[in-house]
């Protein structure tokens, strides 16, 4: 199968407009005859479900939480980028496009990124119209702040709760469509398989998480808006329920998986305190606007930070990257923090942390001004650590946060299975090898509000609007496969808990496929994951039955899929003999220790095809063509 990205012809700035005109339309009277399934109700899913409902399609939306309002988009703190140029500081659609392509270390598609930048301005308009309470200035107009990887202020925010406010906006639009009967909402329902008939996505198999009922749902198109797979690392900033199952099941049905090894390690998270830890908490990147990152100059310096004089501190980001300073992109900041800790200059009990210090800002702006900007973040830090960040510097360390990889999609957001789409973090498309801060919210909403409502019609218009035949044997077969898998999980009755397997997988992934990777370690990880998988299916212990609310069973299925995904991530990382963005292969670095790309051999998207149980995945390459930006060594000095 040849990958066709369907990038439209024409100059960059005109591609999307031209494409919109060329896309086929569905007659307004026919729209209600098409059923669309949306899985996941985060920014991408809620925005898509609401927008498609408004257009007149019949939408069924699914989420595993008890309410669509709880999807993990809600936890995004810092903000959302948009090329409004309200600051008059030289921003433009082209600059946002350029920063995003460069920030992604030249491993994203130019056309997709340009479209993202183009519709970013509409997103802000849409959200404000919904009543999203963005931060404002005294004149009543919208406020902005700066984020990493950019030299303009283009980030719109709502205190440290931007994701919450944007999600509640999308949720309110979704609720309105539920009220109007255009969207039927299924909460506490998890997708466990995809139904593919004659090569087209025609439905899903779900489990009702309260009763255990396994059901099938048919549709003319299926949208996966199921987020990222950071929980493959066990510890991440993701929610406990965030999982890869829907995407992975689709992958096993024929959807290619793009760049699985591209994961983002966020530099500013609260460090791990012990083995009991279930998740890591992020401290918004916006803190790097006013906080200064440092470690002691001398290795092993265990003095209290207040006892370390100015001249014995190393503000390493300011020293190494004078023009961007503390606002370098996330991959650069994370790698540098790790480097400091590897040199023995890490702080705190574990030595796995660096300081993020607000003393200078408090001196300059006053405590009240700092509180107004970051109050909720400081409170959160205080709650978790028991330390007061107004009085002593925060201790931070990188943690898994976001996955740039995901299901491969074309320009229309369609996967390699016709009729199956992937939106938001679930797809691979816009962030290349590293995502810039405040760009995830932008992409989720762009895909859901402004891309899929146009592109889905192009597919639906080619298929007949008569109802999908649910008596087709594939529906029953898919349901049977899901039931059998659940029965297998329940019947193993081994000695190890699901959590133990998950934790073990996480340790392997973090150690060998985390912030730094090398061939030897990756090969070792491959063996370890394979034997972990074999052991899981022999020795996992899942109590209870299917016909009840069974949180162990839910988790078991997700961890089983994470193990398989972990293996593919390692294979992808091994294949990519270069360093780029968040993928840092120790063998490939510049003399100064920065990521060294290999544009001759690796300027492509790695799209992996599943070929069967215990068969090797097959690599397909989508060459990336850069017609507008020049590939250079990324520099933030």
């Amino acid at each position, binding site marked *: 199968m040849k990958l066709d990205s369907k990038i439209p012809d024409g100059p960059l700035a005109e591609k999307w407009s031209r494409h919109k005109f060329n896309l086929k339309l569905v007659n307004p009277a026919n729209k209600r005859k098409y059923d669309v399934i949306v899985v996941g109700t985060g920014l991408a899913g809620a925005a898509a479900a609401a927008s498609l409902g*408004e257009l007149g399609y019949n939408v069924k939306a699914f989420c595993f939480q008890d309410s669509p*309002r709880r999807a993990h988009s809600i936890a995004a703190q810092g903000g959302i980028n948009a090329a409004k140029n309200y600051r008059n500081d030289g921003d433009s659609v082209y600059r946002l496009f350029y920063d995003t392509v460069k920030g992604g270390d030249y491993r994203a598609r130019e056309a997709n990124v340009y479209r993202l930048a183009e519709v970013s301005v509409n997103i802000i308009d849409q959200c404000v119209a919904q*009543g999203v309470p963005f931060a404002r200035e005294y004149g009543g107009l919208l406020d902005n702040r700066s984020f990493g990887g950019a030299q303009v202020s283009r980030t719109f925010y709502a205190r440290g*709760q931007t994701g919450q*406010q944007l999600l509640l906006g999308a949720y*309110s639009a979704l*609720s*309105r469509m539920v009220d109007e009967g255009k969207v039927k909402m299924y909460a506490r329902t998890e997708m466990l398989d995809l139904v593919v008939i004659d090569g087209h996505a025609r439905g899903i198999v779900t489990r009702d998480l309260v009763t255990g009922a396994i059901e099938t749902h048919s549709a003319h198109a299926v949208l996966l808006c199921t987020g990222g797979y950071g929980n493959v690392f066990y510890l991440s900033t993701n929610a406990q329920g965030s999982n890869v199952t829907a995407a992975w099941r689709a992958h096993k049905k024929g959807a290619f998986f793009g760049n699985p090894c591209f994961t983002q390690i966020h530099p500013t998270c609260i460090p791990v305190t012990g083995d*009991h830890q279930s998740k890591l908490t992020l401290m918004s990147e916006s803190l790097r606007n006013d906080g200064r990152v440092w470690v002691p100059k001398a290795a092993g310096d265990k003095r209290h930070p207040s006892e370390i004089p100015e001249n014995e501190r190393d503000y390493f980001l300011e020293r190494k990257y004078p023009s961007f300073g503390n606002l370098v992109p996330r991959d650069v900041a994370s790698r540098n923090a790790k480097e400091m800790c590897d040199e023995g200059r890490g702080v705190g009990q574990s030595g796995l942390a660096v300081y993020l210090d607000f003393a200078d800002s408090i001196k300059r702006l006053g405590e009240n001004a700092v509180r107004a900007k970051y109050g909720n973040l400081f409170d959160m830090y205080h709650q978790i650590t028991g330390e007061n960040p107004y009085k002593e510097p925060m201790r931070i360390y990188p943690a898994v946060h976001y996955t740039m990889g995901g299901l491969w999609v074309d320009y229309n957001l369609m996967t390699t299975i016709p009729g199956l789409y992937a939106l938001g973090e679930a797809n691979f498309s816009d962030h290349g090898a590293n995502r810039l801060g405040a760009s995830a919210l932008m992409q989720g909403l762009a895909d859901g509000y402004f891309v899929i409502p146009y592109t889905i019609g192009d597919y639906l218009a080619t298929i007949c609007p008569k109802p999908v035949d649910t008596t087709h044997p594939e529906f029953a077969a898919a349901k049977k496969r899901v039931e059998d898998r659940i029965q297998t999980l329940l019947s193993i009755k081994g000695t190890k808990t699901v959590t133990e397997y998950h934790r073990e997988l996480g340790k392997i992934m973090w150690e060998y496929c985390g912030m730094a990777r090398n061939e030897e370690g990756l090969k070792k990880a491959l063996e370890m994951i394979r034997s972990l998988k074999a052991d899981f299916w022999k020795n996992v212990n899942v109590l209870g039955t299917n016909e009840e609310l069974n949180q162990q069973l839910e988790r078991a299925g997700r961890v089983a899929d994470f193990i398989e995904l972990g293996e593919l991530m390692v294979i992808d990382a091994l294949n990519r003999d270069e360093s780029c963005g968040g993928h840092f292969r120790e063998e490939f670095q510049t003399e100064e220790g920065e990521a060294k790309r290999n544009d001759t051999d690796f300027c492509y998207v790695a799209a992996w095809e599943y070929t069967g149980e215990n068969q090797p995945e097959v690599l397909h390459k989508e060459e990336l063509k850069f017609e507008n930006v020049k590939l250079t060594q990324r520099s933030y000095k």
Partner: protein
Amino acid sequence: MNLTLKVWRQKDASSAGKMVTYPAQNISPDMSFLEMIDVVNEGLVKKGEEPIAFDHDCREGICGMCSMFINGRPHGPKQGITTCQLHMRSFKDGDTISIEPWRAKAFPVVKDLVVDRSAFDRIIQAGGYVSVNTGVTIDANAIPIAKDIADEAFDAATCIGCGACVAACKNASAMLFLSAKVSQLALLPQGQVERDKRVERMIDQMEDEGFGSCTNTGACSAECPKEIGQHHIARLNREFITAKISSSNK
């Protein structure tokens, strides 16, 4: 730390429940309350006993999913946080801790500590939005909003829909939840067109769901993890009365 937990166990919505006692041993003060339950649950699974079911997701105080009634208080003894943000350093070695689900007629128990809060979704569906379709909007800065008004709307909009207000209220009233949304949209220019219809429909829905009436005890605000103030209920009442007067004049 070693603690004794008394936990509500209930097989499903139709079964009777009871308090069951479990020891929680070797608990670190750095653990969050939910991580402490994780440890207890791992122990139960190892012994072949069914773990305690509880709702949780983001574990950073924003998704609103966790919902434990700890020692008689929603989200436990501390002010302004959710259960997942409560850390064991807030307890003492040897403490006995009681853990129950939210108790309200409109929030039936699903299992153990898990309750059904879909009534909240239905209240929002009855009008907790601005009816604006995707794409048909004006430039964001064409709607200037005074900073203090925007800030107050934001304070209301921080509601995470956890239901602590209902659990704290002796009448199981949902007025604080409702007022948070009504207040946010009543303050903003975008919410004006549907102002009257919104409040009337949402109040009707709340009553249909079986929530109790508000008697202004203020327990809701006191226990709200986002510290949403009681004055929003005052605004809700004013909105409701104004809407009723104007609709009876029509």
